[in-house]
């Protein structure tokens, strides 16, 4: 056998062959990649789009809204929503062109909606990126959930997802304070970049004003989907835990709020009531009647529902306590008294003589009492609500001084309550007239000042402003910023609660000598507690109340006419503004303002609610006054069950 000895050439040849072979293999590989990345790139790009990690939102639990004692007014309830996954649906429709039609008719049957409505919802969802689920229906019933899940194989694109539905357990209760939530609009999206189409956000009231606290932070789960639309597994390292929103404790007292609202409902009255604590500006109750049901807004909002709300003649959405602009009537006499005293135009001992009418700036003005009140000082002027006294005071002050002092009591400006849409109202002045001429006339006539002096003319106030003014009288001159939220409760990840208390803020300070202030206070006390006072209907046994009635003419009347005989829309508006406890030496802790639209009379229609609210708040005190246990008749009443026993203080 011959043995070939390898010379270098032999090996060199083989190495060269390998080099060329390598070059060929690499060119082949590059060519293969060219086929995938150049020729078929579009196909794979499409597959890649479908083939991805999808974010599934985990909505944050919205914070609770509670009354001042922790009674839950707004919470979240589990509900089921139907969403469609269009990424899964697309290839199915491609395979079966009738699939969409089948899906629509199936859903129409299950949901009990016309097919056009389903199509409309698909259409509306086009604004949502197709990788995100498209919401089709909310608040599914259990049979609906079962029916949809039974067809999961036929319609894999349908998903039933559990959601948290905002729930206002007491319906219309405190609706105007709490407000409501709704889907974000383009403006919200521009303001909050972390929100997405379809997210819910506070739209009115506390839900809007405290949305940043209540909303919390949505979490997310990341799920892998393959190009076949199949959910593979959760990608856990990327998971973001949802952070629940902070809880909000209102300053509202459930009991007072309930009573106030019930009064309006039972008497079928339109109007508002505001209860505030004059020591710190906390709003204890704020009712506006009629009210809307905020639960309606947190559901799918159809144009029909919206039309129904808008077409209500009583404008349900208006919070009359802060947005209703009304003529203050005699309630404004308090402001006039304070203005006159502050300016030094009158003192606590100044008297005017009332003969039923008086002539100011060449015109005769009537007092509401034809016979007149005789000699009237500030205390009596308030008690009997004498017009002549205030005509005289107003004539001395002039409209610009009235404007100046009213503003200190928040009239004509907003009092910066933590609610949206507060109206400033209007207190006229010569400057205002110059800017708002009447038929081209820019001059303010002094005789117009006389109307303003008894709360008429172009004056417009909100019930809240009246409450602010009464609070200032009650607390000795501090005009406080009213607020409806008391405490914000943040629950940390460790479960520990951190509470932020809303601070008391003084807007203005009204400087008044003690004798002057006491004269006003005594006058208001006499309104309620003395025979001949206009607010006797608010008298509460065992509790000193001070207040002022107001009755506002809606149409110009000639002569003295009884309002109750007029048709509803021409009936007078009724005011009653009060505070208590107001006996000497007591610190008032509650201001009540009641306004009834076309109510008739302040004393007869508004004052009883104030009485009710005072009784409710100071129940124990009132009870102990009523229960004279030495009286055998009282004991008999208790035994019969007519008189409830006083409950211990909370």
């Amino acid at each position: 056998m011959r043995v070939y000895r390898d010379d270098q050439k032999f090996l060199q040849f083989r190495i060269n062959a390998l080099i060329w072979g390598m070059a060929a293999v690499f060119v082949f590989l590059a060519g293969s990649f060219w086929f995938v990345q150049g020729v078929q790139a579009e196909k794979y790009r499409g597959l890649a789009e479908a083939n991805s990690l999808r974010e599934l939102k985990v909505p944050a639990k919205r914070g609770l809204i509670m009354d001042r004692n922790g009674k839950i007014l707004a919470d979240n309830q589990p509900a089921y929503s139907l969403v469609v996954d269009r990424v899964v649906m697309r290839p199915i429709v491609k395979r079966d062109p009738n699939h969409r039609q089948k899906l629509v008719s199936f859903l129409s049957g299950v949901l009990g909606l016309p097919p056009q409505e389903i199509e409309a919802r698909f259409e509306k969802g086009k604004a949502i990126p197709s990788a995100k689920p498209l919401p089709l229906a909310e608040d599914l019933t259990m049979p609906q959930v079962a029916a949809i899940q039974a067809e999961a194989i036929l319609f894999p694109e349908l998903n039933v997802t559990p959601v948290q539905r905002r729930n206002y357990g007491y319906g219309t209760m405190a609706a105007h304070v709490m407000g409501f939530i709704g889907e974000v609009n383009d403006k919200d999206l521009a303001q909050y970049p972390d929100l997405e189409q379809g997210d819910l956000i506070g739209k009115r009231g506390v839900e809007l004003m405290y949305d940043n606290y209540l909303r919390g932070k949505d979490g997310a789960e990341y799920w892998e989907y393959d190009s076949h639309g199949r959910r593979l597994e959760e990608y856990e390292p990327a998971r973001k835990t949802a952070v629940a929103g902070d809880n909000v404790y209102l300053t509202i007292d459930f009991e007072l709020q309930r009573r106030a609202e019930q009064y309006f409902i039972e008497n079928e009255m339109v109007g508002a009531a505001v209860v505030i604590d004059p020591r710190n500006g906390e709003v204890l109750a704020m009712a506006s009647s009629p009210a809307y049901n905020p639960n309606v807004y947190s559901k799918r909002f159809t144009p029909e529902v919206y039309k129904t709300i808008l077409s209500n003649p009583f404008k349900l959405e208006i919070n009359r306590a802060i947005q209703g602009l009304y003529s203050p009537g005699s309630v404004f006499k308090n402001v006039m008294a304070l203005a006159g005293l502050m300016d030094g135009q009158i003192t606590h001992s100044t008297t005017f003589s009332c003969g039923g009418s008086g002539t100011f700036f060449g015109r005769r003005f009537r007092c509401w009492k034809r016979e007149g009140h005789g000699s009237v000082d500030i205390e009596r002027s308030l008690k009997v609500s004498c017009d002549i006294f205030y005509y005289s005071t107003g004539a001395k002050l002039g409209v610009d001084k009235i404007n100046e002092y009213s503003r200190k009591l928040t009239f004509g400006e907003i009092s910066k309550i933590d609610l949206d849409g507060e109206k400033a109202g209007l207190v006229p002045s010569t400057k205002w007239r110059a800017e708002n001429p009447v038929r081209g006339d820019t001059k303010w006539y002094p005789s117009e000042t006389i109307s303003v002096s008894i709360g008429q003319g172009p004056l417009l106030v909100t019930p809240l402003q009246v409450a602010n003014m009464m609070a200032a009288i009650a607390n000795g001159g501090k005009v406080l910023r009213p607020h409806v939220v008391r405490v914000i409760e943040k629950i940390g990840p460790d479960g520990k609660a951190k509470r932020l208390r809303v601070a008391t803020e003084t807007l203005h300070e009204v400087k008044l000598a003690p004798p002057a202030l006491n004269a006003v206070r005594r006058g208001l006390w006499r309104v309620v507690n003395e025979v001949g006072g206009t607010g006797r209907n608010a008298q509460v046994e065992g509790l000193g109340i001070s207040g002022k009635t107001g009755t506002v003419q809606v149409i110009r009347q000639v002569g003295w006419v009884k309002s109750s005989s007029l048709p509803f829309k021409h009936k007078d508006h009724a005011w009653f503004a009060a505070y208590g406890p107001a006996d000497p030496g007591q610190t008032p802790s509650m201001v009540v303002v009641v306004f009834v639209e076309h109510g008739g009379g302040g004393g007869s229609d508004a004052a009883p609610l104030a009485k009710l609210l005072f009784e409710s708040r100071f129940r124990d005190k009132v009870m102990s006054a009523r229960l004279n246990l030495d009286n055998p008749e009282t004991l008999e009443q208790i035994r019969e069950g007519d008189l409830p026993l006083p409950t211990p203080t909370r």
Partner: protein
Amino acid sequence: MNIRERSLPTLDWNFIGTAIVIAAIGVVLIYSATWFTDPNLTVVKRQMIWVAVGIALLIAFLIVDYRILFDIAPILYGIGLLLLVYLLVWGQVTANVRSWIHIGAFQFQPSEFMKIFTALMLARYFESNDRAYLNFRSFITAMAIIGAPVGLIIIQPDFGTAASFFPLIAVAMFFGGIRPRVWAAMILAALISIPAGYFFFLKPYQRERIVIFLNPERDPLGSGYQVTQAKIAIGSGGIHGKGFKQGTQARLDFIPEHHTDFIFSVLGEEWGFIGVVIVLGLYLFLIIQALTFAKHARDRGGTFLVICLISFVIFHVIINVAMQIGVLPTTGIPLPLISYGGSSTLMFFIAVGLIANVDMRRFVNA
């Protein structure tokens, strides 16, 4: 040895530089593949350590004259075999395979280093066997040198690693020299044994892999899944790619092993066809340089050492790159210097060092 005075000027910096550039690209790709799922970047940091250690080993294996390594090759080879035996008896089972040795917190695969030792052993054998064609005895000897570690690795059982010794067999046959009629006989034998092996020798999951390789659409969520997903990632990259960190497919778990065996799909997605061509070009450059070194080596042993070592690179690159787009079936073969992994990175740096070592000492009078 006088490296500094005589050998260093002849060191080919381009060759080593190419290897380091490839490794750097690897670190970038591993970062792209893992930053999302591994925010602490532990994987990238670890790979950087491996690269640094690899460069140190490269220098070490450059300094020692490869002829000295030939002298001690039987000892190294013997130690390697003992480690493999040790693994079989005491090794811990990782993913059903006993291929790792744990030393403290570190673990390494002796089979990777065994590739170097086997290459040294084989080159040493061919140094003294300079026949143009292998005779039966020398063929059996060469096969025995390769067969001993392969046999031990197959028992582990780690077929992927065992298969990666295949380039040595090819080198022995092609460069050792086999007559045309023997080639013909072997091809015939292979044609008969492949179906036989398929039915009697392969485990079910391996059989499945071959079936799915032939028809990947058959099981898009199963074994064909990786290839399908890798192709989607690569294809969606297009010509220009999606850009650094812009890949959506590869960084996620659509592609299992996206930072090890399927790292090339990250390249394809983020850097597109252009990136693919550049990296393939770098590999080709590295391979051609090495083969040129082989031609100019001082002795037959040096030539064979370079060929043996570069054959590993060739084999890994072709198999790995081809499987990304389904040209070859999916195997656990990493991409040299780029795939994440300590043992593999170190092994290839040593190989690069040894190849440069042979080239540096190409002048007979050195």
